[in-house]
């Protein structure tokens, strides 16, 4: 049982909906959506790159965004997945952690958001790229930008403007509680509104994720970095490339 758990009476129906039902819906959509997409839309599993249409802005915006978001992801892993007790055990004080998180997080967040701004600007102003933009893309961009903006705003608001907020006592445990199938919505009820809105928009983003071009995240061609230049594939033991049809197996 979570030590911070509130009594059931504190947990309103809305909180249950937002912090129990919605996360699982998003999770199911994320996992099942990817499975479905892989099964039925293999040839649509693509970034639909627009590099052919424009690359001057893309060359700046794309790395800025992608490297930025990599650090954002790492930061989220550090903040959400690793319990506070672990870092304290190894001697990282709250202040140290906080300083590192805010500094690195803000830089990464700003880089990501700047990259995204360039990419969206490019997408809107370059005719060929805009022509290749679907309604689905537009929705995705809106949700992605919203999530990023809220995240950065929450960080800036609570840490720089405000006096700092230790999300590792509320949001992080809630996040882990979802994955341990013991969700505790009460943990979220006390979080500042910007954090909660950030979490909600993130849930929405993960919910639509498999149905957008964001699927490319799962298939980032990391293996290419270490792949020998030539790949020989000898034939399968069977005769043809296709599985033999019933009644035509080799005897």
């Amino acid at each position, binding site marked *: 049982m979570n030590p911070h758990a509130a009594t059931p009476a504190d947990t309103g129906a809305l909180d249950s909906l937002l912090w129990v039902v919605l996360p699982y819906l998003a999770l199911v959509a994320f996992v099942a959506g990817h499975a479905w997409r892989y099964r039925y839309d293999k040839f649509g599993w693509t970034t639909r790159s627009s590099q052919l249409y424009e690359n001057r802005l893309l060359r700046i915006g794309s790395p800025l965004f992608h490297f930025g978001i990599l650090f954002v992801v790492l930061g989220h892993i550090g903040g959400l997945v690793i319990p506070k007790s672990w870092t304290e055990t190894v001697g990282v004080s709250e202040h140290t952690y906080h300083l590192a998180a805010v500094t690195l997080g803000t830089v990464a967040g700003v880089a990501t958001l700047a990259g995204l701004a360039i990419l969206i600007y490019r997408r809107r102003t370059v005719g060929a790229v805009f022509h290749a933009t679907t309604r689905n893309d537009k929705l995705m961009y809106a949700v992605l930008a919203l999530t990023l903006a809220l995240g950065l705003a929450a960080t800036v608001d609570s840490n720089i403007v405000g006096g700092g907020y230790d999300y590792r006592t509320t949001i992080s445990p809630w996040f882990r509680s979802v994955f341990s199938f013991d969700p505790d919505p009460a943990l979220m009820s006390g979080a500042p509104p910007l954090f909660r809105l950030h979490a909600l928009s993130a849930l929405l983003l993960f919910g639509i994720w498999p149905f957008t071009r964001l699927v490319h995240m799962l298939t980032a061609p990391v293996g290419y970095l*270490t792949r020998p230049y*030539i790949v*020989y*594939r000898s034939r399968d033991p069977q005769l043809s490339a296709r599985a033999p049809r019933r009644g035509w197996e080799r005897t």
Partner: protein
Amino acid sequence: MKAKKGPEPRRVGLDSDLTDALVGSRRFFTRAEVSGDRRAVYRIGGRQADTFYRDRWSHDKVVRSTHGVNCTGSCSWKVYVKDGIITWESQQTDYPSVGPDSPEYEPRGCPRGAAFSWYTYSPTRVRYPYVRGVLLEMYREARARLGDPVLAWADVVGDPERSRRYKAARGKGGLVRATWDEAAEMIAAAHVHTIKAYGPDRLAGFSPIPAMSMVSHAAGARFYSLLGGVMLSFYDWYADLPVASPQVFGDQTDVPESGDWWDAGYLIMWGSNLPVTRTPDAHWMAEARYRGQKVIAVAPDYADNVKFADEWLPAQPGTDGALAMAMGHVILKEFFVDRQVGYFTDYVKRYTDLPFLVTLDRRGQGPDAVFVPGKFLTAADLGGSSARAENAAFKTVLLDAATDAPVVPGGSLGHRYGEAGAGIWNLDLGGVDPLLTVAGERATSAEVRLTRFDTTDGSAAELSRGVPVRQIAGHTVTTVFDLLLAQYGVAREGLPGVWPGGYDDPEQPYTPAWQAAITGVAGEQAARIAREFAANAEESKGRSMIIMGAGTNHWFHSDTIYRAFLTLTTLTGCQGVNGGGWAHYVGQEKVRPITGYSALATAADWNRPARQMIQTAYWYLHTDQFRYDPFSADTLAAAGAGGTFAGRTTADVIAASARMGWMPSYPTFDRNPLHLVKDAEAAGRPVEAYVVDELKAGRMRFAGEDPDAPQNFPRVLTIWRANLLGSSAKGNEYFLKHLLGADSAVRAAEAPPGARPRDLVWHEDAPTGKLDLLLTLDFRMTSTTIYSDIVLPAATWYEKHDLNTTDMHPFVNSFNPAIAPPWHTRTDWDAFNTIATAFSRLAAEHLGTVTDLVAAPLLHDTPDAMATPHGRVTDWKTGQCEPVPGRTMPKLITVERDYAAVADKMTALGPLLDTLGATTKGVTFDVTRELDYLRHKNGTVHGGAADGRPSIARDVQACEAILALSGTTNGHLATQGFQTLEARTGMPLADLAAEHQGRRVTFADTQQGPVPVITSPEWSGSESGGRRYSPFTINVERLKPWHTLTGRQHFFLDHDWMAELGEGLPVYRPPLNMHALFGEPEVGDQGELGITVRYLTPHNKWSIHSEYQDNLFMLSLSRGGPTIWMSKEDAAKIGVHDNDWIEAVNRNGVVVARAVVSHRMPEGTVYMHHAQDRLIDVPRTETNGRRGGIHNSLTRLLVKPSHLIGGYAQLSYAFNYLGPTGNQRDEVTVIRRRNQEVTY
């Protein structure tokens, strides 16, 4: 494959140390083997990943087919089918070999053909029968109320209000699905009602170019021919028909196959853009250059073919005739006068009319009297026994060098018919050596007046030049050669008149310097090309060739342009020689198995003759374009001409041609032709006499003299394999207005009183919506289907059996269905049989068996061609002669029609073939043996009107019939035809086909691969021994006469009307001056409405014939949507940048398009590529707020009187042989930049 195991020293690293480190690390993370140098990894299996790819390119079967309707490629294609779906096509490679000394026909096929399978499942595919909703509702209501389809149709179209409602809805959507049964019933009802109320000649069918899918064409043509309906011509209508071909050769478009380009030593591409319009054959032109051939391009723009040429002559649009005349001047001067070339002289003496004598007529009285060229001297003029011989007026005369006396050689028209001519209709001169000129001791000279048209406004002026003359039998005569020298301005010693001072004389026609001012081509260059052309012909014995295309052929005066070309090829002995002569490739229509096809298409096995109409004149009258012609036909006449055309409009000239029997005219009379026979019976007169009396008394008139009277309207028009309103309808907006009653953009004013036709009835208010039913069969939605009342879904070329031939390829291709016609589509053969069945059912009750009176024109290749001695015109209407059917007016022929039996007759070969045989170009084939073969091959019909006859119920059976009944595909018939010709010519011919006498091409043969054809008297060239086809080689080598007056190729035409137009001899005529004729601004004028430019409509690189502008692949490859190409100079003048929206406006209509601004284009000329349909990205215009038009919205019909001549030697009518061209290139338009915000 396996790399050696174990450590191996690495010699060379990868791209960088970082890469080395990264890639080198893989071996630690994989169980697969990594090579010692780290570059390769060896995996076992995992190839399922490319299953999708193998699946994508796998197929279940491959079917051979090709492309109609009129693609000249004749490419055989492999059509791939997977899971019952046509997936793609690729080129076949198994063409008959050309032989060891030449490149092969393969490879063939272009991107347009490869894109065709897109249509099968395209969004524009017509999948179901459609009927205009408002019409269908009214018909259903009337049908329910009256209980009879025919009465229902009559009820709807007879009510002006309801009729106007559905006609006004044309082009505005509202087509709804119907069933085949209901649609066929409506169509049948419309046909039955029209026949009953107005007569069968108020029905018309239009489908072009049968050669490239002859069964589909024959399907509807046969149906209309059985009904007595009118089949409209296409070759002249498309302006592809070169009128010069009948004028010069007495033959239509017999041209070399593309393989013969290889044989040429000198090749001029004149207005023909081979890589674009003859893509699969262009390789011959490219290859022949490696054999040393010199290639010249004449084109106003930097066309795609120009880059292949050794030299480019950028003649201004429409001035090609001037260049050719100057080249003729040089050749005559250097190769005939300054020096005689034995090969040329021998050739022109034997194979042309140059040595023949022409009388000179005295014009005027007293000392002011001048001479003008008159008529060919004939045996009739000589007096004595030769004048009394049969057909003496058609036996032309020349002088023998040996005796210096006139001789009547064999081979002329007078020898072609009659007893006396048997065995001597040939070009064998025996010991006679014809004199080319009459100059000599006994000659004097005379000054002759000739006409020139090189004035700034194109009007006529006179030239005075001397010729040597002799007196023979009381006539002042000279030779055609002497006249030709005078015409071309090639001076000889001692002759009077005004002559050029030399090549550099810019004033006197037709010198190189003279043409430079007109064409823009330097005089020296023109002279040099002429010299090279002739020198090559001299050395190679005639292997100089001119490939001539639409760029020179689509002009109003293209016949003069072509005659100037043909003068070059004929003077230099290139005609009838492999590798030489004319090669006209514009809308080719060579149905190689012509005899069988004709029999089927005209239903000549059941009744003769079929009604075949010259389409240009048909639409000129029935779309009321004649009402907008404010000028007299006299405008075109020669200087000092006799005034034949004075006060007469073009419509008057058409009416004269019709009543004199020269050209066909349907609808013929202002009465139902089914009533005439009954009326004659009632009057107690023979029908011929009755009709003549009624006409003479003026009680009955030709329908063409009152085209706006409701009883003379065309009532039903069926279009298949064609897109009339998106492609060929010159004067498109006039069609929409008057024929259809739809919205239109016509802005022209009607002719004012005083400029109106003299012999026609003028209705104050021009009718609109003449047509009751527009029926279209197509596989895609077009500008025509959206205006149609009923649209039937047709099979594509990958969904039916058919045959395909062209004149550029000596083989027969087959169409085969890769899939059965999908959705509710049907093959044309099935569709028309469906309609015929519905028709016969209704006809049994409403029509029964009746006698029709067909008025048929005087025909070429028959004795009709001797109706007009000396080409002296006498018009019975003006009292110059009596109306005599078959001589001074059309033949009147009764035909019995059992309308209830039409369906039975459609699907069986009728008995007239047994008794009359089948005739092509004057050669009649006895086909009883072939009919017997077909009885066994196809089976016979049991019961009905065709009991016991060979069946052609299915398209394959129709294919077999065509192949069996034609000489080109049946060696027995070819040999038999040649034997028939041997009897007339006295020359050995049958050996040409003897090598194939036992050979018969079956449909199964054509399914195996393209099959070479057999040499046959149906055509003038020989393929014997595997040689390349070149026209007239039989005439040249076997001395078989041409089908002309002299039996030779003609430079001179002595018909009255030719003289009237000043075109007795080759002459230069500039493009029509639209400013003078219609008050359009002059080219180059710039005002607030924009700039005035010449408006040409050449072929599109991204859509020709087998594939259309709407094809998504081709739209993607090209700019897509409607475009007009213009020069950067013109664009700069009106502030247009590339891809801007522009609007082109003239009196005929409005076009909106994007500008393609290109340095390829010459200043003052724009191109709007042909057949850019209304359906693709055409916005509303600023001019009238309605949707913009197609390329033909800015054009209109203009008819040249000389094209209407008939009843005289080679100037006699035959279907697609001769007729007025629907030319469109002389047009101008005003172009401006428009608001860039377009709305749809």
